[in-house]
């Protein structure tokens, strides 16, 4: 399958141009959240961590919704598909576009969080904990993105997106139940317990697998309709 490299690049650049302003705002809000975290006071911590999670989750939803669902609703999809692209090119361009437009803020906030943990009075044990939460967001994002790329119904997409993100709550509670992880949070050292490593690896592998499967599935479509 030949890749229409130049057009794919242009389409990715187009998505970046379209959404960079909004995503910059999310990053800004995330930085405010990090500042709150850095104060290392209990009230600031709760507020900051809540805000951070909301910002990251909202950015993920925005990225998927804007690039895929809105395109369908606003019928700009027809315009893109009238360009010399095959369904495969389009799939790749959307995937890369999303990874870039969400991935960049995601990385910025993830690294920012980890940096905040390390370089402030916050206990370093939060490092692994935070990473696991970001890992969950990555996984939920992959699932929601895959569903958005495959299913046309706006209702199902919204449900998948919000549903997978909202499950972050049970996930966090579940983490608290695992002794090996919860006991380390208050410590001022980075400890990679086996459950933590296992969970993180699972998150990454599943994310890649879900996206990989979706791309493979789309490769078999001869035409859009």
């Amino acid at each position, binding site marked *: 399958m030949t890749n229409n490299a130049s057009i794919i690049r242009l389409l990715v650049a*187009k998505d970046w141009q379209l959404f960079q302003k909004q995503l910059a705002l999310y990053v800004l809000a995330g930085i405010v959240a990090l500042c709150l975290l850095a104060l290392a006071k209990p009230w600031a911590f709760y507020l900051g961590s809540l805000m951070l999670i909301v910002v990251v989750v909202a950015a993920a939803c925005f990225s998927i919704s804007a690039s895929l669902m809105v395109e369908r609703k606003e*019928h700009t999809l027809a315009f893109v598909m*009238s*360009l*010399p692209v095959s369904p495969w090119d389009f799939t790749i361009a959307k995937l890369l576009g999303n990874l870039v437009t969400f991935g960049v803020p995601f990385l910025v906030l993830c690294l920012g969080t980890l940096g905040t943990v390390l370089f402030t009075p916050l206990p370093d044990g939060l490092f692994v904990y935070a990473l696991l939460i970001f890992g969950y967001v990555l996984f939920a994002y992959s699932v929601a993105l895959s569903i958005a790329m495959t299913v046309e119904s706006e209702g199902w997409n919204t449900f998948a997106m919000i549903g997978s993100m909202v499950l972050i709550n049970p996930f966090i509670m579940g983490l608290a139940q695992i002794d090996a992880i919860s006991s380390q949070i208050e410590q001022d050292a980075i400890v990679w317990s086996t459950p933590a490593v296992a969970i993180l690896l699972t998150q990454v592998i599943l994310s890649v697998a879900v996206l990989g499967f979706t791309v493979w599935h789309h490769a078999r479509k001869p035409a859009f309709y």
Partner: protein
Amino acid sequence: MTAAFSLSGIAKRYPHFALQDISLQLPEGQIMGLVGVNGAGKTTLLRLLTGLAAPDAGEVQVLGHRLPEEQVAAKRDIGFASEDMRLYRSQTLRWHMTLVQRIFPAWDETYADELLRRFDLRAEQAVGGFSHGQRVKALLLLCLARRPRLLLLDEPTTGLDPVARIEVLEALSDVLRDEQRSVLFSSHNTHDVEQLADTITFLHNGRLVDSADKESFLDRWRRVVCQGTAPADLQQWPELASVRNSGSLVEIKARHWNEQLPDRLASLGLQVQRVDSMALEDIFVTAVRSGAVA
């Protein structure tokens, strides 16, 4: 004859609609008008021609490329604009022009500027603020400025005010100057089709009702007014599409007029008073209502 496109034995099935047994061709350098009621299958047909949809049966060849396998190569030379197509509302027309220019090397900047002037569009305005007519013209500009070999247009003049409509027709007829460029446009507006099309294709209920050059359509159909009373079985004649009694007169619409018809009618006691040609709109409505199959 190089064919701009050719469809043979096409079928496409959707849950509530099916396109069946379509075979159609457009020779290079011609304009074809596609006429049909809403839901007749015009949009589906256009999608098959742009490679956006794959047929369930049959073969689609456009500009020498088989679709949908070679859709990328074909779309390089196809300009497609449809009624339900939208541009990115937050971006300017200039942004879209730059995007298209980067993708299509054949973009003619001078011609694009000329079209901006003729269509009275502001390139620096955000597309979201365009009226319906401006949006249609903007889409057309983005197609025309790259001088594609085949233009596929879904309802290009629908919903346009009279001034915008003339602007679009003038821009479309400029394409005529190049005998290697072809156009297929679907329209409700039979006047546009009657004026600009070389070939006319009628679509109804997913089937091809008729496809012929415009002159033979206009030659074949006649409105005949006779004096007398029409016998009940006159409606059964295959050459006649509709028969209507109106007082002492009978109005007949014939789909296959020939010189023998007045005599044959006279033998039934119907004296032909006048024979007129029919406008395409009348032909279309009569053909659909009489369930015409050529």
